[in-house]
């Protein structure tokens, strides 16, 4: 299964709920499109919920980095929510845990954008 993404708005924060696998191909393209759509709609506060993502390869990690830099360069913020142990491990191995702001509580994450 590739990734499934759904977007919802909580106040001025766009929450993207992701599920499945973020890997080279459909997974990375879908994430890129979702970020582009959010920015295109003028929504620059993005919370990416990875709670149901069980697999990310190096291309998926690269897409997360790309999303982060794209949003940041447009004056926005991208934060991560609900990382599984496996995704946490990947971010530790790649030293990206210090780059991303990571939350495990959605309400607190939403408030952190204020």
């Amino acid at each position: 299964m590739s990734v499934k993404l759904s977007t919802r708005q909580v106040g001025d924060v766009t929450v993207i709920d992701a599920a499945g696998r973020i890997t080279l191909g459909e997974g990375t393209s879908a994430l890129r499109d979702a970020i582009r759509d959010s920015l295109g709609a003028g929504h620059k506060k993005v919370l990416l919920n990875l709670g149901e993502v069980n697999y990310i390869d190096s291309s998926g990690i690269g897409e997360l980095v790309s999303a982060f830099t794209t949003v940041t360069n447009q004056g926005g913020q991208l934060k991560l929510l609900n990382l599984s142990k496996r995704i946490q491990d990947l971010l530790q191995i790649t030293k990206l845990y210090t780059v991303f702001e990571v939350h495990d509580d959605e309400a607190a994450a939403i408030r952190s954008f204020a």
Partner: protein
Amino acid sequence: MENWDADQHSGSPRIDAVYDSELKSVDTAEAVVVELAQQMGFDEDELHRIGIAMREAMVNAVVHGNKYSGVKKVRMKVWSGGESLKVVVTDEGSGFEISRVPDPLAKENLLKESGRGILLMQAFVDEFQVRRLQPVGTEVTMVKYLASR
């Protein structure tokens, strides 16, 4: 840890497959190796690591090595038995020197979109080797040992 060269895996591979240079091959090869690893008794976390390492090796071969060429192939050989799994993935690309691959953990490379595949392979298998072939191609060898039971 056993010495790979001295064990029983120096014989014929259990799987010897040739794939087209397309993303579908990445999924197929990953699934084949993970299924075999599961039969060998690797636990869920190890299967996840083996799957990612396999995926990265295949993506390297298909995308960076063969550059999706319609004529170049990726060959995967797998040996299994005893307490270990060995996979060799070979492409027909122009090859690369691992020492010239930028360190993805260096501060200046941390926010680059690509370049983490080798890091993940090294992190997720017990033995990892890249060899440039002559006249063309790259051979990636990965070995994973079953944890002591």
